[in-house]
């Protein structure tokens, strides 16, 4: 398993003072895999993503990406290895137009002409072409999420982390996002944090459930949704 894993987290914990947000998590993702991460609010999902992207340093444990130890690597170094993330609270360049947001992302490893081509491609793919020249700061929350996803795609990473990508989207947008995720997964590995069970059913094969910083279950989607422990901590409140 560890020999072929794209991402391997072993015994990873993160403590904030007295709170243990992530508690000795062992997590492994294969090349090309699509994984859903679910769990109640405060379960530690976003914190786990921050550990994976170097925005926070783990208190204990190690994280490896394609065999490189990235436990204490800087955020930009991890990004350069090919990890892209859409954060839960949108991180976009508000003072730049949509096109520039994507261009800054694409230009890091590409020549200008190629970068422009990538930008046009991503704009078309995410149906952002009409608003390509608008300032991101004035866009609605949902649109800014799309811009952020666009920036991540233009970065052309090998692993994409999406933290609640469907939050605040309309029904139709959620379906489009699910479609997009399946499309992306043809060439790239993804980890998606989501609450919406409809959405999970649309995209997931394998699901990892977080609860109070620990992994509660890890199984395929049917088993997880049928699991009583999962229903107790999480689904009981939401799904009928």
């Amino acid at each position, binding site marked *: 398993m560890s020999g072929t894993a794209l991402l391997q987290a072993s015994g990873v914990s993160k403590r904030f003072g007295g709170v243990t947000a992530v508690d000795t998590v062992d997590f492994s993702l294969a090349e090309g895999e699509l994984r859903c991460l679910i769990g109640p609010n405060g379960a530690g999902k976003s914190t786990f993503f921050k550990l994976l992207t170097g925005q926070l340093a783990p208190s204990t444990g190690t994280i490896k990406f394609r065999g490189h130890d990235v436990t204490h690597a800087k955020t930009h170094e991890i990004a350069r290895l090919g990890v892209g993330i859409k954060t839960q609270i949108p991180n976009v360049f508000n003072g730049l137009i949509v096109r520039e947001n994507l261009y800054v992302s694409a230009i*890091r490893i590409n020549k200008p002409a190629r970068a422009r081509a990538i930008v046009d491609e991503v704009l078309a793919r995410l149906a952002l072409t009409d608003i390509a020249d608008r300032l991101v700061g004035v866009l609605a929350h949902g649109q800014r999420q799309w811009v952020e996803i666009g*920036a991540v795609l233009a970065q052309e990473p090998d692993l994409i982390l999406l933290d609640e990508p469907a939050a605040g989207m309309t029904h139709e947008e959620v379906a489009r996002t699910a479609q997009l995720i399946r499309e992306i997964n043809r060439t790239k590995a993804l980890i998606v944090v989501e609450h919406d069970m409809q959405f999970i059913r649309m995209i997931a094969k394998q699901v990892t459930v977080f609860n109070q910083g620990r992994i509660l279950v890890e199984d395929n989607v049917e088993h997880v949704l049928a699991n009583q422990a999962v229903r107790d901590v999480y689904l009981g409140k939401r799904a009928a």
Partner: protein
Amino acid sequence: MSPLFTGRAGFALVIAAGVIVTIALPLIDGMFGLVQATVFIAMAVLALSLGFIWGFGGIMCFGQSAFFGLGGYAYAIAAIDFGGSSWAVLLAIAVPAAFAAMLGYFMFYGRISDAYMGVITLTVAVILYNVMNSTSGSQYHIGAAELGGFNGMPSVPPINLPGDPSAALSPLQFFILSMILLMAVYTGLRLLLASRFGRVLVAIRENETRAMLLGYDPRFYKLVAFAIGGGIAGLSGCLFTNWGGFISPTAFSLAQSAQIIIFVLLGGIGTLLGPIMGAVAIEYLITLTGTQHRFDANLILGVILLGFVLLVPQGVVPAIAAQLARVIPARRRAGASSQTVTAP
């Protein structure tokens, strides 16, 4: 953000205006006015240096006068020691740029907050001021150049034609050279902002976390921008020293640093043309009141800075731009700004 001055047409307009000033001013103004205008230009270059790092790099530098003064002293010392001016001009840019790079390394790689950065840069300028003030006496010299303490260094050799130390520039020639350098710095910064480096720099200003998540190291970009700003401020110090043939610790003073901040605030943060205008306006105002001798210049600068922060926090040029933005159709605006990083 102003639509009028962005894009190629806007750039051509600004440069055309610069050329007209270069040609017309010597014709309509007397020698006194021309010499006066030259110091305005030196200040405009200084304003550009801060306008660039603050407006586009988001770097809070409260001690830009440190680099201005270092440039001035580096020129003076080198011009006295080497005889000619070519090396002196280069050193006036290189020494402050290197100093900024060194200081920037500690600040950016230490990840200190904006407020701390403001305080540290200000402190550096104050300490340079105190140090230069205490260099009275002949034991303080570099080569043949005596530093002169609070009296400063008088009779600094002026810029000469390259390779011929005896051919000093006339006031008219020096005015034209200053204008050319101002336009060159402006053009260079526009090109830089339109390049990959400039776009990433502005992106970092907008959201440092996102930039890191895309694989950019903000510390490095800020360091380079800060060093470039230091070099430009040094060039301004060189022009200033040439203008009066004189440099003193006042160049490092807090009032000098405050002036630079006011140039940029008044002209508008996030623009290049704004700080130039701000510098000219403030210098003109100080010249006017300076002839009155009733108030201390500090009093006026203080009132402007205070009033500005309390009343118009976003700057005059953006305020005007916001007015224009309402008049000019939205579609055209969008089209114009997509062509370039908005750098009027």
